[in-house]
């Protein structure tokens, strides 16, 4: 299975091609928000370097959010356009899952955090078990000061923290560990990997069905109210 993975959910942008789970090529840049000018070029570069024609691609994968509004729309539009042209399937990969993906075999709990501004984090959490990632915290928005309690409620033990604000967020959660600079940003190669596991679970969709997942604050607040109720 050939997958073209694309990420433009933040200021960094990347494109990668994988064949049967092996990464063939990845192009990553963090030079500012110019995705509309560079992302298609990066896809072309990845396909050429991987020796893959666009019509050979089985799955077009893209980070579907949360993330930069403009960035998500550029990635979505690009992937929808390519998949529409070739008729291939799409994978909308949660930005959180793409961030946790490199820790799939870590056997650890993983807290994924993205900047929601004003000392708030969009967050989710996964547990790595036997090479599988299980989501253990629904996507929500939290003040930094609430992170520790949320991590406790999700049953996280000494979580590895990933995402663009992981360096700041780590100090708010007991026994949490910074997962390192490389895991602050999404890399398209990980989007390919996450898409492969989604394909195995039958979670692909058509270009038409692909949707961005902005996790807007109002929605995230409702999620939080909902999970609070479940708690009681």
């Amino acid at each position, binding site marked *: 299975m050939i997958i073209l993975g694309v990420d433009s959910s933040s200021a960094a942008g990347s494109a990668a091609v994988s064949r049967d789970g092996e990464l063939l090529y990845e192009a990553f840049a963090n030079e500012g928000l110019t995705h509309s000018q560079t992302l298609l070029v990066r896809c072309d570069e990845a396909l050429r370097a991987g020796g893959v024609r666009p019509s050979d691609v089985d799955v077009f994968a893209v980070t579907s959010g949360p993330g930069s509004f403009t960035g998500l729309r550029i990635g979505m539009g690009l992937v929808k356009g390519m998949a529409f042209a070739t008729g291939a399937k799409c994978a909308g990969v949660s930005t959180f899952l793409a961030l946790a993906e490199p820790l799939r075999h870590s056997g650890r709990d993983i807290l994924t955090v993205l900047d929601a501004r004003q000392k708030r984090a969009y967050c989710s959490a996964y547990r790595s078990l036997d090479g599988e990632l299980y989501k253990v915290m629904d996507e929500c928005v939290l003040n930094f000061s609430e992170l520790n309690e949320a991590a406790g409620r999700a049953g996280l033990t000494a979580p590895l923290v990933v995402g663009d604000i992981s360096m700041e967020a780590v100090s708010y959660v007991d026994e949490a560990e910074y997962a390192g600079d490389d895991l602050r940003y999404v890399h398209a190669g990980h989007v390919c990997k996450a898409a492969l596991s989604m394909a195995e679970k039958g979670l692909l969709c058509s270009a038409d069905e692909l949707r961005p997942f902005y996790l807007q*604050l109002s929605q995230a607040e409702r999620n939080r109210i909902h999970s609070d109720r479940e708690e009681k």
Partner: protein
Amino acid sequence: MYTYRFTTASQRETEELGERFSAYLDPGTVVAMYGDLGAGKTAFTRGVLRGLGYDCTVSSPTFAIVNEYRGGRLDLAHFDMYRISSEDELYGTGFYDYLDGTMTVFMEWSENVPFAVDEDAVKVRIEHGEGDIRIIEIDFQKEIEI
């Protein structure tokens, strides 16, 4: 933070004040503007743009929400927050993507988006005086002479 107070007697003088003020702007400067309808927020911004070398029509982006000006001394994004009332709506304009430090950002009707105004933002408050007179207060971290 320094606060400066100016009085202008006409729209033209408000524009000229904006033009002189533009010399103190940098890429990434965010300017939050406050003031009622007809106070002169757009006139001030028009003057700023002229000072940055833009020789074009400048109007309030009430419906477009944001107008971009590129190619002058600074690239400038001119927002009108009149129709914005929540963070989600603001996010959906792409506003936060403009705060990457490369663009100067002007926001009219900042009253509507207090959550988007950082402490270190420059603030421009324009109040009606008698007739065409306007009282303009500017909060700026820098010392300026205009």
